[in-house]
């Protein structure tokens, strides 16, 4: 529409919706990742391939959102949170989906034969990682409400309650991870390449949880240091 003078320019780009959508993509990716491991265990390699593609697509979408935020959050914007804090929080959140992507590719490198006992631990680790990311998503779900209420004390408290919960879940992931590593390094009969890849996968899954906890902490810093 041409013939117009308007005040709308004063309303700048808001990154919060994109941040929320980005967190949702992380959640979707980790759910699919667990499905992919299940399919792998059942030997359904076609499904493994399909899920690899899907997770790859989610990571690409998240990447676009990250770029959108990075390009639009310029110095002339006045946000209710510190701009640098916001970007510092986006970084680990983006790593969540990055590590999902690494893992989804890595598992397709080789058809490993993994002892049942280790499979059980691996699935437990995946479940814990998924729970961690889901809990984290609940935290980020508060963003819209925080903005709507202009960060009232009650709303900030409600949101912040999730941070220690994410950290607790991350700690549980660590425990399973340590147990698994111990088993891998003592699996005398396991094919060396299988053990090597499995060890790598466990590390990557751990990184998903680590970055989720990191992102939760950065979120807390962003909200509390306003």
């Amino acid at each position, binding site marked *: 529409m041409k*013939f117009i003078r308007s*005040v709308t320019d004063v309303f700048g*780009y808001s990154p919060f919706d994109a941040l929320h959508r980005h967190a949702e993509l992380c959640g979707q990716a980790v759910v699919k990742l667990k499905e992919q491991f299940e399919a792998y265990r059942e030997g359904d390699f076609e499904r493994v391939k399909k899920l690899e593609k899907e997770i790859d697509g989610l990571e690409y979408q998240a990447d676009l959102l990250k770029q959108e935020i990075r390009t639009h959050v310029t110095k002339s914007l006045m946000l209710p949170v510190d701009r640098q804090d916001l970007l510092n929080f986006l970084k680990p959140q983006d790593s969540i989906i990055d590590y999902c992507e690494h893992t989804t590719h890595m598992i397709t490198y080789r058809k490993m034969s993994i002892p049942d006992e280790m499979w059980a631990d691996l699935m437990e680790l995946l479940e814990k990682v998924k729970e961690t990311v889901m809990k984290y998503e609940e935290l980020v779900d508060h963003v819209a409400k925080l903005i709507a209420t202009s960060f009232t004390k009650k709303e900030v408290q409600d949101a912040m309650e999730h941070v220690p919960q994410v950290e607790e879940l991350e700690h549980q992931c660590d425990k399973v991870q340590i147990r698994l590593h111990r088993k891998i390094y003592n699996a005398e009969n396991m094919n060396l390449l299988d053990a090597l890849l499995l060890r790598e996968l466990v590390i990557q899954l751990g990184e998903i949880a680590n970055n989720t906890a990191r992102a939760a902490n950065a979120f807390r810093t962003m909200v509390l240091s306003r």
Partner: protein
Amino acid sequence: MISFLIIFTLAVGLYMAWNIGANDAANSMATSYGSKALTLRQIIIIAGILEFLGAVLYGKRVTHTIAKGIVPIESLPAELVAIGALSAILSAGLWITLATYYHLPVSTTHSAVGAMLGFGLATASQRLISLNNINWAVMYKIVASWIVSPIFGAFMAFLIFTFIRMIIFEKFDVEAVEHVFRYLQVGTACYVAFAHGSNDVANAIAPVAAALGYIGVETPVWLLVLGGIGIAVGIATWGYRVIETVGKRITELTPTRGFSAEFATATTVIIASSLGMPISTTHTLVGSVIGVGLAGGLASVDLSVVRRIVASWLLTVPVAAGLTIAIYTVMVVLI
């Protein structure tokens, strides 16, 4: 001849009134549409009536300032005042049309004041008056009011929203609060329309008032009525589109935020009208929105708009003045 010039001035003045209604009035009302406090139809009716009332009941003082406060028209021949007034309104109208076309945040107020100043400078260059006869004290006051008004709006909006945030939001459910403010915002929407009419009608009709050569204090009421009608017609015939476009883009201005910005804007503008100061309602509104942002009320405020507004101030006054001088010179030579 003079009556022909005056009729022409009135015609361009009515176009200005239409443009003010179509853009500035519409912008001031769009906040109420963005927060869904009112439907488009309701806004057009409310804005039409209250802009009209503001113009007729409270538009006199600012009109007086622009018509006679800057250029000492009493000491000029009637014909030259008519030519000068026509040049001023043509210049302001032309500049505003260009600015509207290119989406520049130019104020009709700054254009009208700059154009009248151009008229004064042109007569001074003819040695009909001396430069000292131009009322610089009023001019400085006006410029000061342009700087003060957005800051005042920002400050007041900051205080209002901070109060809402720290007292009301902490105690009550935010959704319920927003619901109540949706109704309160109907009041502030009326307030803004009235204030806007009272201040901005002058930009359209002050040159006409000057051309009519009124030596006394009074601006004829029928002129304010015509200006008010022009603004109302502008809202109804084009402003609704602007309200729709702008309103859709500012949905983050929830009723509490809209209320804060509107109340601060309207109060600032009404004070300016009482003091006879022609200020820009849209710039004050931008200031008020920034005030809400400073209080932590908005997800994102783009401060680069401030730079563009300041640039438009610095550009508008000399351009409108220069254009007036050019048109005036041509007309004096021809007539």
